[in-house]
């Protein structure tokens, strides 16, 4: 496999993880809540693609988006809103519980068997096919991932910089109490952030489901864990650094995985040990730059008093 091929695939995965990182970072910004259940929002959206097999692709995707937004808002209303003043550990464990709940509900409903995405002739499922450019085999879904990432990031940047609600979201992320004192409505800002994160979850769900061709009760779980790691490594205090962190961990996972040899049982010598290589990198970065790889310089993390 050529290096350019590996590079393109890595950018594709980085784009998906970047989308998820934005979703997680937006909610963290306004709520200071690390949403572990984000993966199950993705799972729910991905099951909608199975559920709507035979429907036009646009309708399927729309249902997935609606489902993800609905699930996110319900989570916010039922759990996050009551936990706003709780300790970070309580908030995190509450999202574990939600995640566990949704996984097991999916398990009850759909069992362990994986479900294929869409009908085999549908355009959506067909995006898994590759296009040949010279010696490169690039799946259409890789282009879709990169395109979706670019369009979403642009739209989001416009929203945050050019609209009132965007300004309010940035203000809330910087200092929630002062923002409220200045007339920013907490519930509106939080629900907007949660809804946008739901839309992004649905987009990530479509790409992940099409790439893996199936949906299971574990869809989105391992990806979310990696993105959470990436977001903290990048710097969770700012949306941009969190997004770059998500992109970086997706990129690194895919690229290092392609470059490591396939064979070898001694630790760190083959792609079986890919997680170890990535996590060693994570630890090194955190030790050198605890506030995040892409955090602004001069923002040394202090013990939160």
């Amino acid at each position, binding site marked *: 496999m050529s290096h350019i091929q590996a590079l393109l695939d890595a950018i594709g995965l980085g784009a998906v993880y970047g989308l998820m990182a934005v979703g997680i970072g937006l909610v963290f910004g306004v709520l200071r809540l690390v949403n572990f259940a984000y993966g199950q929002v993705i799972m729910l959206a991905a099951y909608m693609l199975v559920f709507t097999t035979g429907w036009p692709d646009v309708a399927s995707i729309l249902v997935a988006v609606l489902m993800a937004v609905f699930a996110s808002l319900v989570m916010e209303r039922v759990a996050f809103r009551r936990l706003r003043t709780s300790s970070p550990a309580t908030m995190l*464990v509450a999202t574990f519980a939600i995640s566990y709940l949704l996984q097991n509900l999916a398990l*009850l409903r759909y069992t362990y068997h994986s479900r294929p995405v869409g009908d085999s002739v549908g355009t959506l499922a067909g995006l898994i096919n590759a296009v040949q450019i010279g010696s490169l085999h690039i799946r259409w879904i890789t282009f879709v991932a990169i395109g979706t990432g670019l369009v979403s990031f642009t739209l989001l940047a416009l929203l945050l910089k050019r609209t009132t609600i965007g300004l309010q979201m940035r203000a809330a992320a910087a200092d929630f109490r002062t923002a409220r004192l200045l007339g920013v409505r907490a519930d509106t800002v939080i629900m907007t952030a949660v809804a946008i994160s739901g839309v992004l979850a649905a987009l990530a769900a479509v790409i992940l489901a099409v790439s893996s061709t199936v949906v299971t009760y574990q869809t989105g779980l391992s990806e979310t864990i990696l993105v959470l790691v990436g977001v903290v490594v990048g710097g969770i205090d700012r949306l941009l650094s969190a997004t770059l962190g998500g992109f970086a961990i997706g990129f690194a996972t895919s690229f290092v995985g392609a470059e490591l040899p396939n064979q070898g049982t001694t630790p760190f010598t083959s792609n079986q*040990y890919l997680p170890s290589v990535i996590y060693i990198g994570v*630890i090194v970065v955190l*030790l050198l730059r605890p506030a995040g790889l892409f955090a602004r310089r001069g923002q040394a993390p202090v013990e939160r008093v």
Partner: protein
Amino acid sequence: MKDVRGWLPELAAPVVLVVLLALIASQVLSGGDDVKFRNAIVSIAIVVALYVFVGNSGVVSFGHVSFVAVGAFSAGLMTVPSDVKPGVLPDLFGFLKHHSIGNASSLLLAAAIGGAYALVVGIPLMRLSGLSAGIATFAVLGITYNILRYWTRIGPGAETLSLVDNGSPTTDYLQATVGALAVIVAAFLYQRSRWGRQLRAAREDPAAAQAAGIDIHRQRLWAFTLSGALSGFAGGLFVHLYGSINTNDVYLDLTFLTLAMLVVGGMSSLLGAVVGTIAVSLVQIWLSDWENKWHIGSTAILPGGSSYVGVAIVMLVVLLVRPSGITGGRELGFGRFGRRG
């Protein structure tokens, strides 16, 4: 230690709860609930070990199951009889393949390896705090799992390690109960010690603690090491109680479940750790007894697997109603009525 009314309830309450649990378990140990009561007693040891660091320091660690894992695998590996080991685990390093040790010494070995691993990992990592510390400890878990799963020279790899030498179910359960009590006593002695109090002071107010001359990094490191040793020990109890272990038993599910138990009980008290574990375990036991019990027509009201959904709902409701856990992070004490007022 002179003020009996101050410290006795703090130690006695968790001990009494564990003894009660063991007595209930001894009545039903041969029945269908066997496995779940085993889970409960091992979980107590693991959650209390986790509490020693998380509860006293206030820093959430996702890495503790790594110490449980190395403890469990070293205790398990070293008690597989050396005459069968070369046959079932041909890839092992020679010194692992040809030696075996007894039950009690394997538990000490598990504690030693867990503690040593925590110390080595903790020296750099304990400089971090908050989310960075959480993610860094999670990275340790990822690395531990990955290496244990693929490096067949130090263990069974992705296979299940079985043939671990164990006794009768009753003696094993007794060993696990006594072991869990030992972990509780260690946690109690630590939190009452000078170091434990220093760390708790740093948890409440890091700036003031530092100003009072407390070396936060060092205190966190001691707690992390002790907690790692107790986790390794708990891993040893785990492997002897079940007689087998797979890397998937000591990975994400156990990490999240034990953390949830701790937070549900109340993460800053020893009583909270024990109460949370017993509460979640009992809910699991009851709900799974109700699965497939009642039917409407031929459809079960609670089909197989619904107990997991129930456990998640119970945990969520407890956290929403009592965000600081069932015990509110307090110990049981008569201090209010006693001399310390």
